[in-house]
C-alpha cells in the first residue's frame, strides 16, 4: 500500500472516514477486551483528517501528533501495519518502536510524528526549510490541536515560517479538548485562526465536521501555500467524541455538549448527503461498511500474527 491519492468522487471521502472510524473503534475495543496498549483516538474528527489529506498531492509531507491514525489511514497507511505498530509488533511502520503515539511512515510522506505536544510545530519549519532550500516540490502539512496552539512553539513556528516564506499548511484541529481540560479554560479567544493574522499569515476557519467543505478549503489553502510560497493556517472546528486516551469514561465531559456534537457526527452527515444526492444508494453504503469491516478484521489478524521485535532491537537504530 502506498500514498493514496483522491479524485473528485465524494464517495471516496466517506469510505476513508468509515475505515478510520472502524479502525479506531477496533483499537479501542482491543484495549478494553484484551489490554492492548491504549490509543488516542480521533473519533468524530475524521472529516478534518480526510478532507485535508484528500487535498494533498503525492509530494506533500505530513507532520502529525499523538492523534495520528486518521491522518495516516487517510494517506493510505496499511491498517494492519498501523495496528501492528500500536501493539509493538515487528510488522509495524516503525518496527514496534513507536507504539501508537509517534508513528511515522516515510514511504507515505508522513514524517516526524511528535507526541511532545508542539514538537511537530517546531519540526515543521525545518521540514519546510528543507523542501524550499533543496528546491523540492510539495508543501508541508502540520496537524496539531488547540492545546498545542496555546504553546510558545506554535507562535515561534508561525513567526519563522512567515519570516522565511516557508511552504507550511498549518492545520489546527480544534476539537475543544486539551486532554482533560476544556479549551475555554486555557484561552480567551474563541478560535485560533485569527492569531495567524498577527504574523502576516493567511488563515481560514472551516466546519471540521463537513468533509467536503474541509477538502475545498484545504485545496485552496494549499494552492496559496504552493503558489505564494507562504504559510497558511487552517482551523477545523470539530469535536473529540471519545475520551483523550483509551480507556476514558469521559465523566468530565458536559453531556449536552457531547450530545450536540454527536448530532453533528461527520459520518452520518456525509452518508445522508450521498444518499440525498443519489450518488450512492443504501446498498452501496452497506457494502462500503462491510468492506472496511473486513479490512479491519484482516488488519487485526495481520497484527496479532506479527511477532514482537527480537530483543537485539532494543539498542538498534539509536545512532545512524
Amino acid at each position, binding site marked *: 500500500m502506498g500514498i493514496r491519492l483522491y479524485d473528485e468522487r465524494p464517495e471516496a471521502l466517506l469510505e476513508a472516514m468509515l475505515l478510520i472510524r472502524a479502525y479506531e473503534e477496533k483499537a479501542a475495543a482491543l484495549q478494553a477486551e484484551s489490554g492492548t496498549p491504549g490509543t488516542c483516538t480521533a473519533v468524530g474528527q475524521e472529516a478534518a483528517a480526510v478532507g485535508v489529506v484528500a487535498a494533498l498531492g503525492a509530494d506533500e*509531507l505530513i*507532520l502529525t501528533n499523538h492523534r495520528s491514525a486518521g491522518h495516516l489511514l487517510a494517506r493510505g497507511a496499511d491498517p494492519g501495519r498501523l495496528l501492528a505498530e500500536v501493539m509493538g509488533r515487528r510488522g*509495524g*511502520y*516503525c*518496527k*514496534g*518502536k*513507536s507504539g501508537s503515539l*509517534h508513528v*511515522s*511512515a*516515510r514511504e507515505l510522506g508522513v*514524517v*516526524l510524528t*511528535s507526541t*511532545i505536544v508542539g*514538537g511537530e*510545530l*517546531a*519540526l*515543521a*519549519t*525545518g*521540514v*519546510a*526549510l*528543507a*523542501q524550499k*532550500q*533543496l528546491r523540492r516540490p510539495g508543501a508541508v502539512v502540520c496537524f496539531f490541536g488547540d492545546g498545542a496552539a496555546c504553546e*510558545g*512553539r506554535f507562535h*515561534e*513556528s508561525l*513567526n*519563522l515560517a512567515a*519570516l*522565511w516564506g516557508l511552504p507550511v499548511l498549518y492545520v489546527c484541529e480544534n476539537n475543544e479538548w486539551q486532554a482533560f481540560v476544556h479549551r475555554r479554560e486555557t484561552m480567551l479567544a474563541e478560535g485560533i485562526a485569527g492569531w495567524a493574522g498577527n504574523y502576516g499569515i493567511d488563515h481560514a476557519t472551516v466546519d471540521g465536521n463537513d468533509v467536503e467543505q474541509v477538502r475545498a478549503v484545504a485545496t485552496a489553502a494549499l494552492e496559496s501555500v504552493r503558489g505564494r510560497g507562504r504559510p497558511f493556517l487552517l482551523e477545523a472546528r470539530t469535536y473529540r467524541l471519545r475520551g483523550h486516551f483509551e480507556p476514558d469514561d469521559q465523566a468530565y465531559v458536559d453531556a449536552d455538549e457531547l450530545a450536540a456534537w454527536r448530532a453533528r457526527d461527520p459520518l452520518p452527515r456525509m452518508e445522508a448527503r450521498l444518499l440525498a444526492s443519489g450518488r450512492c444508494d443504501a446498498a452501496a453504503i452497506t457494502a462500503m461498511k462491510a468492506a472496511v469491516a473486513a479490512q479491519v478484521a484482516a488488519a487485526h489478524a495481520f497484527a496479532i500474527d506479527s511477532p514482537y521485535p527480537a530483543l537485539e532491537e532494543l539498542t*538498534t*537504530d*539509536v*545512532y*545512524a
Partner: protein
Amino acid sequence: MARITVQEAIEQALAEEMSLDANVLLMGEGVATKRPGLVQAFGGERVRNTPLAEGIIAGTAAGAAAMGLRPVIDLLFAPFLCYAMDELVNSAGKLRYLSGGQFEFPLVALAMTGAGWGVGAQHNHNVEAWFAHAPGLKLVMPSTVADFKGLLKSAIRDPNPVLFFVDIALAYAAGEVPEGEVLVPIGRAATRREGEDLTLISYAKTVDACLRAAETLAGEGISAEVIDLRSIKPLDEAAILASVRKTGRAIVVHEASRTCGVGAEVAALVAEHAFDALKAPVLRLTGPDAPTPASYPLEQAFVPQAEAVVAAARRLVR
C-alpha cells in the same frame, strides 16, 4: 603549521565543510552578522540570522536534518539550551529510534560554556552531563585549537546530532593547526602527556590545569599521564582503562558540578573494569554544586585549579 584562534578554527571548519557540502547551513541569533565572510562566500540562504527563540531554531534544525540538510546552529550560551532541550533530546535524539530508523538527524548545536567571562550563572553553566544522559546524542568539548577545527568538521559530517561545547575561556586562545584537512574522530581521547604514577583525566579548559599540575608533579618525581577526553559521548573507554591499568591511579578533573557529572561516569567505569589495577580510590575534582558566580575571584575558585590537582595527586601517590 598555522597559528590561529579557536574562533578562527571554528570559522575555518564551517567554511571548509560548507564548500564541500551544499547541504550544510548555519543558523542562529546573529550568525550572519558575526560571520560576514561566510555570508559572502555562501549566501544568505545558507547563513541565516534567526529570531531569539532557541526552541524553534533547534526544532527547525531537527526537521531540516531529517529531510536532508545538515544544519549547524549556534545557540550562544549553554544555559539557553534549556529552551532547546526538548527539540534536541526528545526530537533529534529520539525520533530516529522511535521511527525504527527511518530518519537521521545530522545536526550540530554549538554553545559556549564555562567560567572565564564573569557573566554569571544564567550565561555560564556546564550542562554537558545533562545531554550525555540523553540517548541518541553525541557530545564533544575540545581543548586545543586543532581539535576545535578537526572535531567540528567531524561533527558536521556525522549523521547524528552532535552538541559542540566551546569553553568560553578557550574561545580566543591561539594554537597550531596543521595545514590541509584535519579531521579529529569523535569518540577518541588524546593522551596529552605520558606518565607512570597516575592518570589525570579531563576535558576542555581543565586539561590545561592538569598539564600544569603534571609539570609541577614531575619536579617532585611524580609522573602523571594526562588524558584529554575531547568527546564526552561516546566516551573513549578503552583509552581511559588502558591508562589507569598502566598507572593504577586516577583523578578526574572537570568544571561541571560533581553530582552525576562526567567524573562519576569515569570513576564508575574504572571501578567496574579496572578495579584490580587500582592502587587507590579514583578521585574527582569538580566545580561545586552551586550556580556559577560572576565575581572574578569566586568564579576562579569555581574551577579546579592546577594547585588543587597537585595536592590531590600528592595525597593519592603517597
